[in-house]
């Protein structure tokens, strides 16, 4: 069963198309990653799913039916730009959000999540006394305090240190295990690759990728070589069959041209320098993202 179905939704702002004729199905119990460059339409799509914005055309089904203008009790939403009432105490704030969402057993849930997020000591302090990381964890709790069956997180990991990001990641996985469907948008491709059952990429308002990670990578095939060699970039210049080289310093990632032979390329490199690592692989999600969005700064086109 699909928890969310988008049927040809389009949204324009002042004549500019923000989201164009988008179709998307989010299966129950899945983690769906929304990726795409800034301004590509992720947040607009999420806001339309949340009924905060209305599409100009198309249909949105949540839990199998339309809910125009209404707020559903069992949906948790963490917007990208988020703020909290700074003068409220942590526990008071959680209870306020829990009551707004009609949450059950709030006292127990608040204690459980404060403990899980290591915020119990701060329960009676004002929100303004929390650090940025703590505030973000508190934001996360306000989103899921009523145990929603659909959780929509817009950039939940932005600004978090690795330890706190891991805490949130584990919490999301646990919520999914307990039956929740999770949508989250992110710029962290590693996080998306590690967590998501499905990936959806939107670029300039259009859907450019949609499917499981494996199915997406299958489209691109094993066209990527990872190489570590003594001479680094110098050894890779002018070799036929190389389309693009991504230089990571200690390691280079090469995309080969369609039909090129990876073994011949390896032989050529070995004739120039000592190779310590050579791997034929499928492109990473990060590479796929860059291929579509093409931010040229991080790569060097092979002439």
């Amino acid at each position, binding site marked *: 069963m699909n928890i969310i179905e988008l049927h040809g939704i389009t949204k324009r702002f002042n004549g500019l198309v923000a989201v164009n004729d988008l179709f998307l199905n989010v299966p129950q119990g899945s983690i769906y990653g929304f990726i795409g460059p800034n301004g590509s339409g992720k947040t607009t799509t999420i*806001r339309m799913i*949340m009924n*905060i914005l209305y599409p100009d055309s198309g249909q949105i089904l949540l839990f199998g039916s339309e809910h125009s203008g209404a*707020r559903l009790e069992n949906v948790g*939403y963490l917007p990208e730009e*988020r*703020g909290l009432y700074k003068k*409220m105490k942590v526990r008071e704030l959680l209870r*306020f959000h829990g009551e707004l969402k009609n949450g059950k057993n709030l006292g127990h849930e608040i204690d459980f999540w404060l403990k899980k997020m290591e915020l119990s000591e701060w329960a009676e302090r004002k929100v303004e006394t929390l650090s940025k990381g703590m505030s973000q964890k508190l934001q996360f709790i306000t989103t899921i305090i009523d145990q929603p069956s659909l959780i929509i997180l817009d950039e939940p990991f932005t600004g978090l240190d690795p330890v706190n990001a891991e805490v949130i990641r584990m919490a999301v996985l646990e919520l999914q295990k307990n039956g929740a469907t999770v949508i989250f948008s992110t710029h962290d491709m590693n996080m998306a690759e590690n967590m998501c059952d499905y990936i959806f990429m939107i670029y300039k308002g259009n859907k450019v990728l949609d499917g499981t990670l494996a199915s997406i990578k299958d489209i691109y095939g094993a066209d990527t070589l990872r190489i570590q060699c003594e001479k680094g970039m110098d050894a890779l210049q002018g070799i036929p069959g190389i389309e693009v080289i991504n230089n990571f310093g200690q390691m280079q990632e090469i995309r080969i041209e369609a039909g090129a032979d990876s073994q011949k390329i390896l032989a050529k490199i070995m004739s120039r320098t000592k190779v310590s690592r050579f791997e034929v692989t499928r492109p990473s999600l990060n590479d796929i993202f860059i291929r579509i969005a093409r931010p040229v700064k991080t790569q060097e086109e092979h002439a």
Partner: protein
Amino acid sequence: MRKIFILARREYRTAVRTKSFIIGLLLAPVFMGGSLIAFALLKDKVDLTEKHIAVIDHSGIMADYLLQAVEERNKTEIFDPEKKEQVKPVYQLEIIHPDTAEMQQLRIDLSERVRNKQLHAFIEIGPEIIHPGDNPEKSRIKYYSENSAMDAVRDWFSWPINNRIRQLRVEELDLKEEAMKDLFNWINLDGLGLITVDRKTGDVQDARQISIGETIIVPYIIVFLMFMMVMMSAIPLLTAVMEEKMNRIAEVLLGSVTPFQFMMGKILGSIAVSLTASAVYVIGGIITARYLNVGNMIPYDVLPWFFTYLILNIIMVGSGMAALGSACNDNKDASALQFPAMIPMILPLFVMMPVIQEPLSSFSTGLSLFPPFTPMLMLLRLATPVTIPVWQPLAGLAGVIIFSVLSVWAGGRIFRTCILMQGQKPKFVNLVRYVVRG
């Protein structure tokens, strides 16, 4: 509705728990009544330094009489009859014989003496004060001092001078002293209310004396209380909504509530805050008035109207303020909009006096039936001792209800569009477009 109550409860708790609310609650009446209290405390603090007054008597009939009158005053009038303390300053009179050739120089010299504090004032009495002739200049009595408009000395001298003039005019008529006694007995018209009949018992209640307090002060206080409540609870919604938009609290809440619920929650919270504060003031006012034995001045029949109009006024103004707040992006936008948005609240204050003077005039009736002004001006008319036709407050109420619904509807449409919109300046044309298109 449940969500609106939860939002309103948070707004209310946040507002009433702040120190500024409690301090404001206590300080507002102090500021309002401060000048009255200061006046009451300071009215007995009269300057007791001796006052020298020069008199130039062109008529030749006033100088001796004034010397006697001042002497008499210094003996009897300047002491408190019970405490025997001096409560008024001694006057010292200096009679100056007019030198008609150098009058202007004399006036200049005397003015200089006033400036040097040797004199308090000087009086110049015209030559034809008993029988003013064709030249009005000759029958004038001029009082020169540094602050002659508000001067107790000037007020006092009016009496002996006019008594003397009257006395001389009467003497010319050759009337007997006894016949003359009542001649100047001026009888004031006592201002009374109307006679009422108790509907239950049939008892006739005599008309009460209507004081200036009931006619002017009570209506003023009630309308100012309304103004203060709206200023305290509805006007700040503009900056509150703007801040929640800028701090990105709005979008978090919009995940759980609709924009309309969000706006109404804030308005309902404001109503609760203003009802709390006004209840404190009204109860405090009633207790104080009873303590001061002026409890009969409180128009109890107006209080239900006060609370009804207050609630509707906050809905009306609050929805406008919340909508404008949602359209603002920073404090600059908010402060630019705040004053124009307050104009419908401020304008009724300017017309209070004419409305109090003639509550039944077509001017007063018309303005009080214009919905943005109705809560303040209809209330003002109701609070005066005059009975206004029963249909008028009801028609005003209907107008305000319709206007409030329209205001909430239009405000809701602006709010819904603007609350997540960043970087757009709140232009009037755009706001109208949001209302029309939604």
